[in-house]
C-alpha cells in the first residue's frame, strides 16, 4: 500500500503572531516557518505503518509557495520516500483555501493511487479543520477524522476518534482519508544522517495549472484585526 501525506508549511507554533497595522493580514515576512505539528504526526504514523510492513511507500505532498520544499525535505528526513510540491502561490502571504487544496490533492490521488491518505486534523494557521474531509468528499472515500488510534487491516481500518463526549471508534472502508489528532503518536526528530540522505530523495515540482485546478479563492479577506486585548488584573 502507498500512503499519501499532505503536509503544510505554517508559522512555527512558538511564534507570536503579529497582525499587520493596515489590517491586510498577518506578518509572515522573516518569521520562522515549520511543518504543521499535526502533519508531523501524520508523517510519523505513515512511517510506523511502513515499519510494521503495512505500507510500502510514503509520498509527502505540499501545496503552496516554493519554500514549502523545506517542509517536504523535513518529511523526507523523517522517513518519507518521495515528495511532490505543487506550487500554487508565489507570495508567502497567499494561502490556498482547503477546497482548492483538496481539489489538487484529489488529482494527486488519481495519479498516485494511494491506499490511504493521512492528513493533519487542522492547520494551526487558519484552523479550518477541513481539508481532509473535503478531499474525502471529492473522492467519495470514507473518512476517519481526529484519530488518536489507527489500525489498518487489509481492506478496512479501525479508527478511534477524539470527540466532544470522549472517544468514538469506527471502522472505515479502504481506501480512506484519516485526519490525525495530537495523541496519535509522538513524532520522531530527523537525525543528521537522514537529513543528508533526504537531500537526495526525489522531489517533483508541479503547478496547480498542471492539474487544471482553479485556486481562485471563494472567500475574500476583508480585513484581519487583533482580537480585543484583556487588561491584566491583580
Amino acid at each position: 500500500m502507498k500512503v499519501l501525506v499532505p503536509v503544510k508549511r505554517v508559522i512555527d507554533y512558538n511564534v507570536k503572531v503579529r497582525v499587520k497595522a493596515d489590517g491586510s493580514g498577518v506578518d509572515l515576512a522573516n518569521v520562522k516557518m515549520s511543518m504543521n505539528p499535526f502533519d508531523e504526526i501524520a508523517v510519523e504514523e505513515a512511517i510506523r505503518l511502513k515499519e510494521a510492513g503495512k505500507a510500502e511507500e510514503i509520498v509527502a505532498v505540499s501545496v503552496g509557495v516554493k519554500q514549502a520544499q523545506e517542509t517536504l525535505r523535513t518529511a523526507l528526513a523523517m522517513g518519507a520516500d518521495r515528495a511532490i510540491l505543487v506550487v500554487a502561490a508565489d507570495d508567502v502571504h497567499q494561502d490556498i483555501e482547503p477546497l482548492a487544496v483538496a481539489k489538487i490533492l484529489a488529482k494527486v490521488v488519481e495519479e498516485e493511487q494511494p491506499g490511504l491518505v493521512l492528513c493533519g486534523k487542522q492547520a494551526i494557521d487558519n484552523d479550518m479543520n477541513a481539508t481532509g474531509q473535503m478531499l474525502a468528499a471529492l473522492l467519495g472515500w470514507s473518512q476517519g477524522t481526529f484519530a488518536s488510534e489507527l489500525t489498518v487491516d487489509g481492506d478496512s481500518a479501525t479508527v478511534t476518534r477524539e470527540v466532544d463526549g470522549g472517544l468514538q471508534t469506527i471502522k472505515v472502508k479502504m481506501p480512506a482519508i484519516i485526519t490525525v489528532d495530537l495523541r496519535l503518536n509522538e513524532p520522531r526528530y530527523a537525525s543528521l544522517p537522514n537529513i543528508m540522505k533526504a537531500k537526495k530523495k526525489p522531489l517533483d515540482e508541479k503547478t496547480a495549472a498542471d492539474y487544471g485546478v482553479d485556486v481562485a479563492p471563494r472567500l475574500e479577506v476583508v480585513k484581519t484585526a487583533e482580537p480585543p486585548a484583556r487588561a491584566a488584573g491583580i
Partner: protein
Amino acid sequence: MAVLLIAEVTDGALALDATAKAVTAAKQLGDVIVLCTGASAKAAADEAAKIGGVSKVLVAEDALYGHRLAEPVAALIVSLASGYSHIVAPSTTDAKNIMPRVAALLDVMILSDVVGVIDADTFERPIYAGNAIQTVKSTDSVKVMTIRTSTFDLAPTGGSAPVEVIATGDDPGLSEWVEDKVAASDRPELTSAGVVVSGGRGVGSETDFALIEKLADKLGAAVGASRAAVDSGFAPNDWQVGQTGKVVAPDLYIAIGISGAIQHLAGMKDSKIIVAINKDEEAPIFQVADFGLVADLFVAVPALIDAL
C-alpha cells in the same frame, strides 16, 4: 432566504445550549429551519421546535444516522440543500467532521468557527489560535459554516414550530460504528458551564487531579485541562481546553498549574473572569488573569476548598 441549521443531537437528545446559540447566529441570516437527525430524533425535534425564532423542524430518523457518521449525514444534508442560502451547525466535533464534507460536495468553501455575522455574506472568524480575527466575505452561492457558540447568546425558548418528518437517504456503506467511550458525569457540560476549573501539568499526576475535581464540585463547575495534562494522562481528552480542544467562555475560569501557552489561551481567553493559581509569577497566564495567585497549588487549592 432560509437557513438550514443542523441541530446537535447525541443519542436522541438535543444539545439545547449549542443548538439554541447557533439559532441566535442563524436568525440574523433568514428563516431558520432546523434539521434533527439520528437513530431517534423525534424527541430532540420536539425540543428544538420550542426554541424561539425557529420556523420549522425537519426530522430524519434512521439507524443509519445513529452515530452521526460523516458520509450518510453529509449525503442527507446535501440532498436537502437546494433552496437554502446558508447551511449552519454549531462547531462541535460532529459538525467539524460533517460540514466540510457537505461543503466540498456542494463545491463551496467552508467557513469554520464563525464568531461574528456582519451580513449575509460577511463573517468573522479567528485564525492563528485566536491571535487574529479575520473578516471574510464569501462569494459562494450557498454558505456552509460552523458557528462557535461560546460567542453567541442563547435563543430563548417558548416557540412552537411545526415538526415535519422527512425521507431518509441511502447508506453509502463507507464506514460503520464500532463503539463509544463516553464518561458519564454529573458535572455541567464543559462548553456551557458557568464556572470551569482547569488543571495543567503543574498538578503532577492523575491522583492529584482529584484536587481539581474536588474544587470543581464545590463550585458546581465543569472540569477542564491543558493539553499537557491530557497528554500526561491526568485527564481525559474531552476535557482539553484550547486551540485544538474545546473553546469555553464561562463567567468564571480558574486555571491551576497551567502556564498559559497561546494554544491554551485560545480556548478560554473570552471567559468573563479569569483566576490563575501558579507558583511561577512569570507565568504568561497572569497576563490574561483578572485575579492571580502566586502560590503552590497543593497549599492554595486545599485552603480554597476548606474556605468554600
